[in-house]
């Protein structure tokens, strides 16, 4: 019994009583997509709480990732066969985020060790690869996925854009482009020292359609027949309207 107590005590000591912890604030709790949505940016800021027992070995770093809802996606490669370009191979990535942004307080190799990146899937190539790891030879396909989505402004990496002041206060702005989809945007903040993650803080930023956007979307999903008929009625009414207007003009 005494041995068990000792063991428990030892375990408690070994447990990292987090010496440095993240306290977070967001400029907005949710993003509303309205009919005139032109993108948005979220200010992510916070402080590092210390209890005085921290060991100061290595520099402090802050890494922030924002990830959109994950959906499966097929990446196809074209190949020239008999002189024409056709879709040859395809790789299915089981869960690619619709949006992914990484912001760091310094160069990646300084703020995050390779092994920690592997464990937490932080950087772009890790985050995308880890979810599609089942397929063979998928390297060039996931690279293509990242390249195409980066060109569309959906995937981005910002090195050194997290301001870290006095090793205590940090802040950054994450830009959400106008072509984002709705869903729960998983936001992770990593606090690292010498490239080792010492604290992680996770939160969700909901991105939702509101007003007429929401109404139309729900109707298309829940009342598909009515929605289809409405679309057709609008089309016929517009066709008739234009015809009548032009006929009136001629007179």
């Amino acid at each position, binding site marked *: 019994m005494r041995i068990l107590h000792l063991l428990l005590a030892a375990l408690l000591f070994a447990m990292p009583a987090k010496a440095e912890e993240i306290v977070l604030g967001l400029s907005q709790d949710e993003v509303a997509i309205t*009919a005139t949505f032109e993108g948005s940016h979220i200010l992510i800021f916070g402080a590092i709480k210390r209890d005085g027992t921290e060991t100061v070995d290595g520099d402090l770093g802050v890494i922030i990732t924002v990830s959109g809802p994950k959906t499966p996606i097929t990446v*196809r490669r074209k190949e020239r066969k008999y002189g*024409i*370009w056709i879709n040859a191979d395809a790789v299915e990535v089981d869960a690619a985020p619709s949006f992914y942004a990484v912001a760091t307080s310094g160069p990646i190799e300084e703020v995050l060790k390779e092994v920690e990146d592997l464990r937490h899937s932080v950087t772009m190539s890790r985050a995308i690869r880890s979810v599609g790891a089942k397929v063979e030879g998928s390297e060039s396909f996931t690279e293509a996925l990242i390249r195409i989505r980066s060109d569309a402004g959906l995937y981005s990496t910002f090195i050194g854009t997290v301001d870290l002041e006095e090793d205590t206060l940090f802040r950054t702005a994450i830009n959400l482009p106008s072509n984002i989809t709705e869903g729960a945007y998983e936001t992770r903040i990593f606090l690292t020292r010498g490239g080792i993650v010492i604290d992680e803080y996770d939160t969700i930023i909901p991105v939702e359609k509101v007003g007429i956007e929401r109404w139309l979307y729900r109707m298309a999903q829940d009342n598909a027949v009515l*929605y289809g008929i409405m679309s057709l009625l*609008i*089309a016929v009414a*517009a066709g008739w309207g234009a015809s009548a207007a032009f006929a009136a003009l001629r007179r």
Partner: protein
Amino acid sequence: MLIYLPIAEVSVNAFLLLGLGGIVGILSGMFGVGGGFLMTPLLFFIGIPPAVAVATEANQIVASSFSGVLAHLRRKTVDIKMGLVLQAGGLVGSGLGIIVFNYLKALGQVDLLVKIFYVVFLGAIGGLMFVESINTLRHSSKGRTPAKRRKHNWVHNLPFKMKFRVSGLYISVIPPLLVGMAVGVLAAIMGVGGGFIMVPAMIYLLGMPTKVVVGTSLFQIIFVTAFTTMLHATTNHTVDIALALLLLIGGVIGAQIGTRIGVKLKAEQLRILLAIMVLAVCVKLSFDLLLTPSELFVLGAAGGH
């Protein structure tokens, strides 16, 4: 002015869409084509997801062809009887086409087959029309009477004759039914309304007057695209009503203008322009197949083709 589309989930410039709708509407009113083959790639280009582009395009075509048909009805250039017969054949054809499409899909490489088919088909139709109309135009400009197309061939000896007054034809219903069916099959496989196949078929196979062909083609396109819209709305939920509205405002106005341009042109001129357009689409598609693409990879929804 940027508008966020609720189904497509992207922001687009409203004026750009109005303009695109207008241009395609003009072509629609002039030639009796839906314009889907032109609009769909343009929508891909501005970032609309393919599934949404195809479904919404169908809805927009309902509007522009309805607008065009009303303009043609006023000029009495719609053969409703012929349109209905073609439609009847078209429905059977679409059903068959879907079966063929699924069979091709099971074989794989359906996209490629469709594209090659398209190129060969468009090249042949466009080329034949172009040569024929140029010849007609040259003959008439030399002052000679244009060579009259054969009005009597084996087609006219078939049973079940019917009078199509607007077209000035007294022919068997079998050829229009077959034409409608063939176009229905092709339209279902290629995923287009089939206007630009229907128009040459009506001119050359059925011998209908060019002026009547445009209105009649638009008339039957309304039904095909209305059906497609409902199908997409209920099964895939991919009709974006906001996108459709922006496109169709431009489209209905364009269709009215196009009809007026079409009426002013000579039948031969109209056929030459149509031939040029068909050939242009053919050339564009062959370039897609032959030239090295700038991006070798494409993204698609999982499971889709």
